[in-house]
């Protein structure tokens, strides 16, 4: 299966590179040009599509409107049966290599330059064409079969004739068709949701087929449809739909529907059902098709594989050009030689009478020689490289070390032609969250109303998990080392403290689209590990909650705190988008039943009761609130809110981002949730020992069995935490949440509005029941709370600083009580914002900000995002390998530094340089100052290196044209650079800057949508298929599941791939030059006439068959050092960084060796046969045979490993050659004139002289290289060779040597330090954490990664 994929990808690359992206990028042609004037939007028809029901009332218009729309059938095949041969040939001749072959074939048809028989020069071309054509035909057939399967899927479509829904194939679905789908059916085309059996008009879809995310997404029926339910038939469907033309933006869909009443309703992404998603949890849905077939978003997104050109290939192209130069020189020599020779010849019997002048003959001969010496241009090299890379990728993909048990995933190689770049990486740019860390959020501690609850038990629990892990791995640096990292001291140079921006939210997901941050993992691995679910409650907090239930609890002050606490937990349980489901029915969202049979308490009730202090327990409860609620916050209102929640968030720009937060900072900078007054009476706290399930209504799934699925792991962590305190989120429907509170049983909370998280606001807000205002409305109370707020804010801030220093992700919880009128006013403006089409995003932002002010701080939480396993080891290995590791994160500076410490990026001996600037001038000064410091520091001894920490703002300045030189100069001297608070754009800018200015090989690794740009810019992009969706993976070249895999990928596979390919390429050049020169030398003895002493079949096959397999095997399987040693000695990686295996000098040395070998291979037989009665072919026979032996044995010398496969192929090649020539010399009676081989080789191989010559030639030709290797390896062995030698020791010796190596490496580093100023390994004793950092962490935010 995998293999077929590559072949396909490979093929697409081979053929479709020039013709765009092949099939998948279907034409963006827009069909609606011809649409009739139905609306006053005619001027926009070029950009829009109009859809009406196919069998609806406007059938006559339907055809003209939908004329340009594609059907739903898909055709991903390239060819049809008829067009295969011409199309395929046409495609193939887009390749330069094939054109070259074709050119040679053409050349051979010109009589005056003809070198061989016409059919012989065609062989290489024909072979290549046929091989690729067969591959392509098979591939295309497979695609065809697949298309057939997809196209013949059955969907239920409304038929105009039968007036009912009938089964139809997918391919017969058209735009404007009504399609009815049931649960678990796959959506056949992009459709607008018009009807759902769900009473709220929602349906859930699973987009796993589209983006790999397995969580459910909600879709909403188009608002205010005039007909509902059963009425909804095409005949009655009088509405027009205007929407965008097909595009590939999965998260955006805009348009409106115009009802017969001329009312317009906006259409959004959450009205759209995307092709190839699956309907879940909804019995029946009906939709109208708006995009079909290749116009669906799914198909538009199906882009082909990536094509990158590797560094080695660029280098290779230079050498191919050199080969061309060499070829031209050789041909010119022959041409001139021929002209001169011809001029000196008088009339001779061997000269065929000819009137052409010598000059003209020379000119003709030039072209003849190009045909004769064609092999010099290693055209077969390109095909071979491609095959070798396929082989390398096969082994990378099959590496068991890259297998992740949890995800059942291997490494994915998406770019197939840059394997060797993995061996030359000099800079690694890494994301932090999800890349270095697990992105599994675990609640660690919290602070409520200014009181810290350290959750010591929880911390212990986390450490126990770690220790278990550590035992397995033998090392420990996670939380503990993070704590100890405080002993580090730091020297900070901040020039403008006040300007340090107060962005707080852990921002790894800045800039992510609305739908991106969703866990893609199967539930069992994502959110069900006990690690994340279990939270050990803090005794103090439990005590307080218990005291809530005690009858003595009457003190007002205590009650205030308790109010805070309860509000805090309510907020945790409510302010999220967590979907609750039960494990036995994983796809069943547990919902709040419409008509509740259990006594549900509404917030109103609770609040009422709360007023009557001292009433501890409700045994009897009021009837469900829904009916008696005076508010008219209807479903419609909610729907708008949801619509907003699916609005794509605006891409964050620094200016936008900065402003609101600074403003907010004055108020206290709380990232808050706005809760519309969550007050509840603390019912009798029955203690944590009480069984929770007993209180739940019968039939309700036990709380323990609930599964929370969240868009962001933080949300889930908080919900789990709340549940640990018995504040359990039990179900969710569109309008309300079912929350179980301690001692009170279930309670329904109405949802009014959700302001979803976006990276600009960095917060989300949920509006819940806004019923009671009396408690907060008294001005006196407000004053009181003001004073109290100040204290709480101060305390919480202190705790937050501590959290951040511990490397925790902090979120603040806040609330706000709104008056009814206030809310109504806001709602109107919000509604306006939602419906406006022009600058809707800005309006929504503004509206949200209006609501999210003057919040009351409740508390804050600290969430641990643990490091992934073996991250420190991996980073250490990379650094030892000479790779500079930069961390680019959106996180706070403190968090970033702490993570850097934890993952060994920062060592205790490192000197930390901090750059926080507010203006460009300051930034410039700072850069210079830091540089001076680094330079002075380098002179001193004792520091192991510098680490630069830059924040996003400073980075903005540093990336400007006139400062980037300084910035680079500074960062180049630092061992590591940490960029915090950086935006996705900045990430890619940094990568581009380093890549272009320093001319180094860069690798970017990340897991989220915010890393996509960086991944695309870098030479090698690696995506981590983790918790954050597939964007990073989709744009990456390689996708791995853990950061630790990077170590083996680079150090072992990168090293291997690079050395293998480099050696193979050199070998190819050698082989061609060596062989072709034999023919060239002969020209000196045949009057430069273009004669060859070999049968032309053998000549052509020599490269094509006899010597093609061994280098391929060599390129795929050679191993200079074992994997173990490469892992243990990362220093070996450096040889690839400096391209040691393929330097220009290596190339020319190889050329020289090839020249020498060809001289030997030609002139030894020449001298042995000179003057004898040898004929041409008999002369060529030993030359050919010894050339073959030399070429094969040369490879044995060059190989680092020889397995039975090598032996098989080498011996096989030799046998193949000899048997071929023998058989040919017996069978070929009149074939292949003029070089008729009949009897030649048979006779030659029966003569001892033949073997004498071959033996001597082979030995003499290989002697220098053999000697060179032996001498070099003895006198100055390379590191790689020493490592290879170590491989051969027995295990004990191996360990001993390995230790010594590692010691001496460290020593030599220290020694190098004294001598080499450039080496920046200098130690400065202590460093102090910058004070400024505290200020950085002032602002904190809420939920949603």
């Amino acid at each position: 299966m995998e293999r077929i994929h590559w072949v396909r990808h490979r093929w697409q690359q081979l053929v479709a590179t020039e013709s765009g992206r092949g099939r998948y990028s279907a034409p963006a042609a827009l069909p609606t040009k011809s649409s009739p004037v139905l609306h006053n939007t005619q001027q926009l028809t070029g950009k829009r599509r109009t859809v009406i029901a196919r069998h609806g009332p406007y059938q006559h218009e339907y055809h003209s409107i939908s004329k340009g729309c594609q059907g739903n059938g898909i055709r991903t095949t390239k060819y049809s049966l008829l067009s295969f041969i011409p199309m395929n040939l046409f495609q193939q001749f887009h390749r330069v290599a094939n054109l070259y072959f074709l050119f040679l074939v053409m050349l051979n048809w010109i009589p005056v330059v003809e070198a061989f028989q016409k059919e012989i020069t065609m062989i290489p071309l024909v072979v290549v064409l046929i091989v690729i054509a067969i591959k392509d035909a098979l591939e295309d057939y497979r695609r065809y079969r697949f298309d057939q399967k997809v196209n013949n899927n059955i969907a239920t479509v409304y038929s105009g004739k039968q007036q009912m829904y009938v089964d139809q194939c997918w391919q017969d679905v058209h735009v404007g068709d009504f399609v009815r789908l049931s649960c678990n059916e796959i959506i056949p085309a992009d459709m607008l949701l018009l009807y759902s059996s769900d009473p709220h008009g929602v349906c859930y879809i699973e987009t796993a087929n589209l983006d790999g995310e397995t969580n459910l997404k909600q879709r909403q029926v188009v608002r205010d449809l005039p007909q509902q339910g059963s009425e909804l038939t095409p005949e009655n469907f009088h509405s027009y739909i205007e929407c965008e033309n097909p595009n590939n933006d999965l998260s955006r869909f805009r348009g409106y529907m115009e009802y017969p009443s001329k009312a317009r309703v906006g259409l959004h992404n959450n009205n759209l059902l995307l092709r190839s998603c699956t309907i879940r949890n909804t019995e029946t849905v009906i939709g109208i098709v708006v995009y079909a077939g290749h116009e669906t978003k799914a198909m538009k997104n199906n882009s082909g594989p990536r094509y990158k050109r590797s560094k080695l290939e660029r280098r290779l192209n230079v050498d191919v050009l050199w080969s061309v130069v060499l070829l031209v020189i050789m041909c010119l020599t022959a041409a001139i030689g021929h002209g001169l020779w011809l001029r000196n010849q008088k009339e001779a019997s061997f000269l065929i009478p000819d009137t052409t002048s010598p000059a003209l003959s020379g000119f003709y001969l030039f072209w003849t020689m190009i045909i004769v010496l064609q092999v010099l241009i290693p055209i077969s090299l390109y095909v071979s490289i491609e095959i070798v890379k396929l082989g390398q990728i096969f082994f990378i993909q099959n590496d068991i070390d890259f297998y992740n048990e949890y995800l059942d995933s291997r490494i994915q190689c998406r770019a197939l032609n840059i394997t060797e770049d993995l061996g030359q990486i000099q800079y690694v740019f890494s994301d932090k969250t999800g890349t270095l860390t697990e992105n599994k959020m675990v609640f660690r501690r919290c602070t409520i109303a200014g009181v810290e609850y350290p959750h010591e038990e929880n911390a212990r629990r986390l450490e126990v998990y770690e220790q278990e892990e550590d035992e397995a791995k033998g090392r420990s640096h996670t939380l503990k080392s993070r704590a100890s990292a405080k002993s580090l001291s730091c020297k900070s140079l901040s020039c403008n403290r006040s300007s340090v921006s107060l962005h707080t939210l852990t921002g790894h997901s800045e800039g992510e689209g609305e739908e991106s941050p969703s866990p893609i993992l199967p539930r069992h691995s994502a959110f069900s590990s006990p690690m994340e679910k279990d939270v050990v409650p803090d005794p103090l907090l439990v005590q307080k909650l218990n005291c809530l239930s005690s009858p003595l609890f009457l003190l007002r002050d205590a009650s205030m705190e308790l109010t805070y606490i309860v509000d805090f937990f309510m907020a945790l349980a409510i302010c999220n988008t967590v979907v609750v489901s039960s494990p036995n029915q994983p796809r069943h969202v547990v919902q709040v039943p419409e008509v509740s049979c259990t006594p549900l308490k509404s917030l109103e009730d609770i609040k009422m009761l709360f007023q009557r202090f001292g009433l501890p327990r409700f045994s009897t409860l009021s009837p469900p609130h829904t009916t008696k609620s005076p508010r008219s916050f209807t479903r419609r209102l909610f729907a708008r809110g949801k619509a907003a929640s699916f609005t794509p968030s605006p891409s964050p720009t620094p200016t936008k981002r900065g402003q609101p937060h600074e403003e907010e900072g004055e108020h206290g900078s709380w990232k808050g949730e706005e809760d519309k007054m969550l007050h509840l009476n603390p019912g009798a706290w029955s203690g944590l020992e009480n069984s929770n399930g007993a209180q739940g209504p019968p039939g309700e799934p036990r709380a323990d069995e609930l599964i929370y699925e969240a868009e962001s792991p933080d949300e889930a962590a908080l919900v789990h935490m709340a549940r640990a305190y018995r504040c359990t989120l039990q179900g969710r429907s569109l309008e309300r949440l079912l929350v179980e509170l301690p001692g009170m049983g279930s309670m329904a909370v109405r949802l009014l509005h959700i302001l979803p998280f976006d990276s600009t606001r960095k917060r989300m807000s949920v509006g819940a029941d806004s019923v009671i205002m009396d408690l907060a409305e008294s001005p006196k109370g407000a004053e009181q709370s003001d004073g109290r707020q100040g204290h709480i804010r101060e305390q919480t801030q202190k705790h937050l600083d501590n959290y951040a220093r511990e490397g925790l992700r902090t979120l603040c919880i806040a609330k706000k009580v709104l008056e009814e009128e206030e809310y109504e006013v806001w709602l109107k403006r919000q509604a306006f914002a939602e419906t406006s089409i022009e600058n809707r995003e800005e309006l929504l932002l503004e509206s949200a900000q209006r609501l999210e002010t003057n919040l009351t701080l409740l508390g804050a939480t600290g969430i641990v995002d643990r490091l992934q396993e073996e991250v420190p080891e991996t980073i250490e290995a990379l650094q030892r390998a000479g790779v500079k590791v930069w961390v680019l994160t959106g996180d706070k500076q403190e968090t970033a530094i702490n993570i850097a410490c934890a993952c060994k990026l920062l060592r205790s001996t490192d000197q930390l340089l901090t750059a926080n600037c507010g203006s460009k001038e300051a930034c410039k000064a700072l850069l210079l100052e830091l540089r001076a410091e680094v330079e002075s520091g380098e002179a001193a001894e004792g520091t192991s290196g510098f680490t630069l920490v830059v924040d996003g703002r400073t980075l903005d300045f540093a990336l400007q044209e006139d400062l980037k030189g300084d910035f680079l100069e500074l960062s180049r001297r630092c061992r590591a650079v940490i960029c915090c608070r950086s935006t996705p754009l900045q990430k890619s800018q940094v990568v581009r800057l380093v890549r272009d200015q320093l001319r180094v090989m860069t690798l970017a690794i990340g897991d989220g949508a915010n890393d996509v740009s960086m991944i695309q810019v870098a030479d090698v992009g690696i995506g981590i298929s983790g918790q954050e969706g597939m964007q990073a993976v989709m744009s990456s070249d390689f996708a791995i599941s853990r950061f630790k895999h990077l170590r083996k990928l680079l150090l072992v596979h990168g090293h291997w791939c690079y050395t293998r390919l480099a050696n193979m390429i050199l070998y190819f050049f050698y082989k061609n030059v060596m062989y072709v020169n034999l023919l060239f030398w002969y020209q000196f003895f045949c009057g430069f006439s273009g004669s060859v002493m070999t049968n032309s079949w053998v000549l052509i096959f020599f490269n094509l068959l006899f010597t093609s397999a061994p280098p391929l095997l060599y390129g795929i399987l050679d191993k200079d050092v074992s994997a173990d040693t490469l892992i243990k000695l990362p220093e070996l990686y450096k040889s690839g960084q400096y391209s040691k295996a393929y330097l220009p000098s290596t190339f020319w040395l190889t050329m020289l060796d090839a020249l020498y070998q060809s001289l030997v291979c030609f002139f030894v037989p020449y001298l042995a046969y000179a003057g004898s009665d040898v004929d041409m072919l008999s002369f060529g026979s030993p030359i050919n045979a010894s050339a073959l032996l030399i070429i094969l044995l040369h490879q044995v010398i060059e190989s680092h490993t020889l397995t039975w496969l090598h032996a098989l192929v080498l011996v096989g090649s030799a046998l193949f050659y000899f048997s071929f020539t023998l058989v040919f010399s017996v069978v070929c009676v009149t074939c292949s004139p003029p070089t008729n081989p009949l009897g030649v080789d048979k006779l030659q191989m029966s003569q001892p002289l033949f073997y004498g010559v071959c033996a001597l030639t082979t030995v003499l030709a290989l002697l220098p290289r053999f000697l060179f290797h032996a001498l070099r390896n003895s006198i100055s062995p390379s590191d790689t060779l020493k490592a290879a030698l170590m491989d051969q020791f027995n295990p004990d010796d191996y360990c001993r040597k390995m230790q010594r190596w590692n010691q001496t490496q460290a020593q030599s580093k220290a020694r190098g330090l004294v001598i080499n100023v450039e080496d920046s390994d200098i130690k400065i004793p202590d460093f102090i954490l910058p004070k400024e950092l505290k200020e950085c962490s002032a602002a904190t935010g809420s939920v949603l990664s």
Partner: protein
Amino acid sequence: MMASNYNASKEEDGHQPGAMGHGGAGTVKNKKPDNTAFKQQRLPAWQPILTAGTVLPAFFVIGLIFIPIGIGLFVTSNNIKELEIDYTGVDMSSPCYNCSQSYSWNSTKPCTCSVPFSLDQPFESNVFMYYGLSNFYQNHRRYVKSRDDSQLNGDKTSLKSPSKECEPYRTSDNKPIAPCGAIANSLFNDTLELYYIDPNGSRTAIPLVKKGIAWWTDKHVKFRNPGGNNDNLTVVFQGTSKPVNWRKPVYELDPLDPDNNGFINEDFIVWMRTAALPTFRKLYRIIHKKPNNMTPTLPRGEYILEVTYNYPVRSFEGRKRIILSTISWMGGKNPFLGIAYITVGSVCFFLGIILLIIHHKYGNRNNSAEIHS
């Protein structure tokens, strides 16, 4: 009661192939790679690391093998007796001077000359008599091509309409040339005879065997007269023309021996096997060893070479020689191979010694080489 009334769905359903599923492996099966030695690249392998220590035995072995072979070859080559006589007639003093001056392809009268020579040593075994040409580029590309193998193989259609490669020696007088092409056209046509001059002055013709000089495969497979075993070659070749430079048609090359006539004439076959280098020799005759084995094949003494001088070479500054040579298992006389073997063997031996020194000097260090990284 909280249980929802929607249909439960199975986990696996989430992986049904959708339109996007082209590249995605939506399979439920375990993707764990096989843990085999091949796939994990752990095949047992021999790792040849060339260091002074490991290669020096090879050098000694090569030296020890090559030197004896070289000596053997050299001795063998030295034992071969060879005599070369240039009879081009460039010098005034040369007996063939006149012939060489006057002769051209167009001459009708044969010119003969006698070249006396003496043998210092007797030639013991079979003696091979070659004619040699210099500066004759039989390997010229256009020359080499200028033949029709089908015609020579007896193909009747090719006989009547030879290959275009033969141009301009394809037709003459509107009749196809047989054998066509430049190679055949330039057939070496000197006749050489050898006489032993007894001490008493009488000339004894030395029997020169003209069969057995061509390759067996050429004679029996590659070259065939048209019309199979039809002895009457005159009829067979009717309608064809002789090559322009030839005096007589192909069916008169050896009228006495039908087995050596026409295309299967061995002199012709030998000529048609184009030489590799511009200076070459071709086997002309064989002088078989005397059956009684008592007297040498060619005893020491005076000889006369009678040349019928037909072949012009002066126009391209060529030379004509005859070579008398015995042969060994290694072929003709060529000291090069022996010397080369001895040289290479000695060099290897010498290098082996150097490597030994290097090994002693660096070998120990090499074991702890990592210290000096």
